[in-house]
């Protein structure tokens, strides 16, 4: 996976997580607890992906020439 891809993935996860946080709050206030859990899981998975993409990027970025 190239550096550009990692950048794209990380930015995408931020977008996803912002939306998920907003929806989670909304679901919480509306007491839609099942749907809240779904958003929660999506959000955490996306955070995990961001972390993974970061590690990947770090490997490429700091590789010794």
């Amino acid at each position: 996976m190239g550096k550009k891809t990692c950048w794209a993935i990380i930015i995408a996860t931020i977008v996803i997580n912002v939306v998920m946080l907003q929806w989670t709050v909304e679901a919480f206030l509306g007491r839609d607890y099942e749907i809240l859990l779904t958003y929660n899981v999506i959000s955490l998975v996306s955070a995990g992906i961001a972390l993974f993409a970061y590690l990947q990027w770090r490997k490429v970025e700091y590789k010794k020439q």
Partner: protein
Amino acid sequence: MTCKKKLGRNQKDTNADMINLVDNVNRDDDLKYNRRAFLKTAVGTSVALGVATIPFSVKAMLGVEKDYERVEIAKLTDLPEGDSVVFNYPTEKDPAILVHTVNGDLKAYNSACTHLMCPVFYEKEQDVLLCPCHAGYFDVNSGHPTAGPPQRELPLIEIEVDNGIVYAVGRQYRHG
């Protein structure tokens, strides 16, 4: 150095490589705010946002709806048609409104608007619940939003009339 336009290496404003590096007064910033740092911050942001959803789930799992008490709201004689009275139910922190509609029905809802929590009031000319903050309208018979920003219905307070006194006995958060 035959080219006249090109300045000597150590002259002011020369474009030669590796000269005047100390002129970069922002070099500390360049070390701190660069592409790598930006990406790391972005990752941190993404993870923080993800983690920020956890407390909501935890709270949702802990918050079990308890039993409701029976609480007196008002005497029917004090509440003619087209009038409304405010009370708090189920706790002191939950404002609610009991409406005697112009059609003679008794309806009660939590009065915090489901948009941004302004208190709604009964508009008897139009027979609606109206939120003044951003013109949110709710159907007084169902509590569901009909116009404006609110997306969710107002929580319904279950009521009972006993000997001319109206009691609150329960609440349905999502209904209909």
